[in-house]
């Protein structure tokens, strides 16, 4: 028994992504229509050309009918998927597998979430009936657990770590300020981030990604058919997904300085894509920066930094737009907010723009322009450190050599 990847078997030939933000005047259905319309247009396809759909949403609707009813689809299969904050990526993964299997010719992965309508800050979900014994800390606190643990592991004092995570937020807002689809499009000063009101532990409001509404979609075809649709398809080099056993909250050896699911997920993704040295081969990465300490830890778990050294790389600007490996060039969750079902596809959308060299010049990744590097990576995380699912895709502009 083994897992077999689908490297270079499928390609993305069209994408759409709504602006993310406070869409008070739009419903989840409206956002789906917008993302779908843009994706079809970018591939030059009509609705009838799509053979099957994978819809990602956590709580904005139930069953495939959220999509079929909205788009008035003509009796096509629509699968609704949910995998916490990796929901959008999960829709993409399943659509890719359907096409790779030969079962369908053209598939759409589409994700949506409408969070602002709840009236609450942060994520809101309705758990199944339970015994009331799970600890009731919020998501910022759950990810905040990484902060004191990382500081201890790397030998940093709290002030130094605060500088590091502040710089991560600062960088992502700098990038997001150059993205018309981002919710927050203002550069922020380090001081404003550092002094933002406390939410949990050393995390301030500006260490947290925002709440927003949005939708994004991708159209997937067999690799060999890709050039029929566009002269710049994006080829899927690796899809990796890991659902963890939830050990962290019960394993005394889990130290909250690393996310095991991400390490395993990255190993599998790099093996499938044939990446030996991610730090030198990946041109850009869209990672799950739900909270600033998350991005810090991810740099090590994704193999971009040595263990205990990510904080130094962050401070050296290695992951800045003009750094060796730009991370979250679109502004990340920090600038976009996090409509669960859409975020994974939003990350992919930035790879789509960057690898096709369609990102605005002020945030275009230079190693792609020079042809020095050819791969983009998306990393999407659902759940909490120690108890989560992780998804990674590696995509490239070139077909199998």
């Amino acid at each position, binding site marked *: 028994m083994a897992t077999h990847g689908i490297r270079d078997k499928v390609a993305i030939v069209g994408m759409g992504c709504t602006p993310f933000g406070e869409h008070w005047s739009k419903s989840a259905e409206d956002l789906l229509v917008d993302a779908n319309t843009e994706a079809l247009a970018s591939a030059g396809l009509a609705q009838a050309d799509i053979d099957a759909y994978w819809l990602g949403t956590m709580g904005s609707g139930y069953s495939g009918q959220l999509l079929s009813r909205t788009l008035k689809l003509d009796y096509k299969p629509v699968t609704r998927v949910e995998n916490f904050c990796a929901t959008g990526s999960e829709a993409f993964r399943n659509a890719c597998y359907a096409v790779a299997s030969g079962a369908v010719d053209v598939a759409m992965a589409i994700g949506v979430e409408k969070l602002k309508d709840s*009236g*609450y*800050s*942060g994520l*809101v979900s*309705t*758990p199944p*009936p*339970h*015994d*009331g*014994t*799970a*600890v*009731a*800390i*919020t998501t*910022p*606190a*759950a990810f*905040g*657990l990484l902060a*004191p*643990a990382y500081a*201890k592991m790397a030998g940093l004092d709290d002030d130094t770590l605060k500088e590091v995570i502040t710089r991560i937020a600062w960088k992502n807002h700098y990038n997001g300020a150059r993205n018309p689809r981002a919710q927050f499009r203002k550069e922020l000063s380090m001081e404003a981030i550092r002094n933002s009101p*406390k*939410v*949990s*532990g050393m995390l301030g409001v500006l260490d947290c990604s925002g709440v927003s509404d949005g939708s994004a979609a991708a159209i997937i075809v067999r690799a060999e058919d890709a050039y029929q649709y566009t002269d710049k398809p994006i080829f899927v080099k690796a899809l990796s997904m890991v659902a963890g*056993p939830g*050990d*962290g*909250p*019960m*394993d*005394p050896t*889990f*130290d*909250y300085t690393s996310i095991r699911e991400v390490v395993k997920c990255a190993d599998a993704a790099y093996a499938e894509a044939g990446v030996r040295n991610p730090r030198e081969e990946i041109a850009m990465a869209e990672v799950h920066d739900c909270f600033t300490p998350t991005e810090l830890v991810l740099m090590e778990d994704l193999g971009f930094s040595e263990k205990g050294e990510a904080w130094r790389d962050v401070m050296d600007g290695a992951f800045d737009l003009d750094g060796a490996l730009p991370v979250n060039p679109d502004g990340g969750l920090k600038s976009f907010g996090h409509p669960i079902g859409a975020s994974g596809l939003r990350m992919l959308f930035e790879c789509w723009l960057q690898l096709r060299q369609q990102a605005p010049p002020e945030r275009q990744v230079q190693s792609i322009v020079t042809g020095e590097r050819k791969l983009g990576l998306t990393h999407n995380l659902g759940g909490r450190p120690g108890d989560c699912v992780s998804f990674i895709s590696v995509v490239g502009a070139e077909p199998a050599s």
Partner: protein
Amino acid sequence: MRTPPIGVTAYGVYLPIWRLQRKDIGAALGSGGGHGSRSAAADDEDSTSMGVEAGRAALGRAGRASGIVFATATAAYADKSNAAIVHAALGLDRSVSAYDFVGASRSGVGAIVAAADAGAAGRPTLAVLSDVRTGMPSSADEREGGDGAAALLFGTGDDVVAALIGHGSASAEFLDRWRIPGESSSKLWEERFAEGAYLELAKEAVDGALKAAGLTMADIDRVAVGGLHRRAVKAFAKSLSREAAAHSVDPQAPFLLVDDLSDTIGATGTAQPGILLATALDEAAPEETILIVNLADGADALVFEATASLPAFRENRTAKSVSEQVTGGRTVDYQRYLTWRGYLRREAPRRPDPDRPAAPPSARNADWKFGLAASRCRSCGTRHMPAIRVCRHCHSVDQMDRERVADERGTIATYQADLLAYTLSPPLIGAAVNFAGGGRLMCEVTDADASTLKIGDEVEMTFRRLYTTGDGVHNYFWKARPVGRATDADKEA
């Protein structure tokens, strides 16, 4: 041949860590106030959770009882049994009966007498007495009341540390204090009216108890008088003193008056007779006699005689003495106290209200939720919290033994002070706690100061009420509490 003694075989007291300084009431409201402090149950405590803590202190690790009776005037539930929750949290066998004595503060003595009778009949029974005394802001009840719990295990034989040698009772119907169910504070008749009635009833009760014990007041070494009618309590203690002095070898100190804790803890209502007895037993030498008098819609008097087993019990227990708990308090500011009591309604966090624990999973997981029993893998020894069926280490299925963790200590592996989470007492501190016996628990930390908490701090487990849902379901579970309880009484919450 002397019949084997019947009486208390183990006892324990729980006092919340928080103290409301009475001067703070005066400072805030321009009235009330006074000197000293009262104990205050935190927002995650109620009569049931405090009863559990007292029960744990009494039973220790290997405690055995055939039954428990739980008495409170401030029940967390009506209709539903609170004793059943105490029973589950103490990890008692299913065959152990659990009954509630709920409603009047006199239920405390009622539970003691019932447990003593059952113990005498060969069924060791734990009387758990617990109360959260409330009162409208600036009222005498708010100022003079106190929160706490006591638990007394009654049985017979060599384990008896205090033999019950006399009981007298006098009952009468008169309107002293009353509270319609659902109200948060009592109403009181004019104080002088009941004073006379109490003095008369208490004398009858004491006379009856002494007669039953075959003693006179001159034979009594320690006396404690309790009750919510503070004026009658003081007056009766004085009259006993006069009576004893008339016959005593030392008229200046006819007996030792047990501190009724009114300056530090306040009058704890239903729990008070138990707390006063425990206070006396913490100090008494073998063969000393102790008279406990309680005034509540009538009067009761109980005479105990400390046995030779008492010093050994005190030495071997791990629970804190009453005086250690009295001096281990921390000040809660008045505004926070009022919020806890529901007298000061604050803006709720912009988060959904916590949803209610569902009955079937709560019942399925009762050993975990109430008894904090983990599962340990028979194949590889790995311990899991919560209890699970498939071992996370060796993946064996259904090779688990249940194992209670409630009485073990742990250390904080990492933690966060969460300012966004729903709580009446922000921040909500969440932590990963590692246990020396294996395993890790993610849980809340209570009675802690987030600014001084550190990775590596030692904690112990305490049974708490996490929150109450909109439809009135109390969500009980265990929290971690720093072991070194602060002793700086002036420290602000």
